[in-house]
């Protein structure tokens, strides 16, 4: 019973960890460069969850001072993650741009094929 309780108490962390490991696995295990980027995106998304989820306090309101409310949610994680999302989007956009140029230069986006071609040179 304790284990189940523990699981549901921390389910947001468990979701974070699953996303994190899944993303990292895709980055490592896949040879396709676009799939790697998708894995990277998933990995970064897990961090958003890590920050955002504890920022919400159940029953808390947006942090606008009002005599009727005493419990407020923490707004800082949202601001941080907004920045992180922008950084993530920039990274993925740049990554895709590089992949499209790699495709023009090599005619493939499979990593092992590219390495094989470099070996021949």
């Amino acid at each position: 019973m304790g284990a189940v309780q523990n699981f549901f108490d921390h389910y947001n962390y468990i979701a974070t960890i699953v996303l994190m490991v899944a993303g990292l696995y895709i980055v490592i295990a896949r040879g396709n460069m676009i799939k790697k980027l998708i894995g990277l995106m998933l990995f970064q998304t897990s961090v958003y969850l890590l920050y955002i989820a504890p920022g919400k306090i159940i029953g808390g309101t947006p942090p606008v001072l009002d005599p009727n409310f005493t419990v407020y949610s923490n707004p800082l994680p949202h601001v941080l993650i907004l920045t992180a999302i922008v950084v993530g989007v920039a990274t993925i956009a740049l990554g895709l741009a590089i992949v499209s140029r790699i495709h023009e230069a090599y005619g493939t986006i499979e990593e092992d094929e590219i390495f094989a071609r470099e070996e021949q040179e």
Partner: protein
Amino acid sequence: MRLDVVLRVGVKLIIPFMLLFGLYVQLHGDYGPGGGFQAGVIVAGALIVYALIFGLDEAQRVVPRRLVEFLVPLGVLIYAGTGAFALLNGHNFLDYSVLAAHAPAGRERGILLVEAGVLVTVSSTMIALFYAFSERGR
């Protein structure tokens, strides 16, 4: 050519509303969810829809590539310039309270300016990305 008349007319009808909605999201950022990022994407979306239906050349006639490349740094310059304005007035960087006599009013004005910079940069960056990818392989 004939078959997509619905799309052409529909897009022409929808674009002004998209731009207006973008502006609404931009200015509503003071009171509710919204702001430069979201608005920028909506504004860029209007042009991207136009490009999808009428073709890339037509879209680049409306918003040339050079203009986009000029707007990307311009937005950042508005943002950083707002911060640097405080520096010139002897306050710390990004201290918006100098922008008006009353400090909170100055901060509001500062955020308005900064969000305008964000709108310009985000929308033009989205368009630049769209142009860059759709010009490939032509």
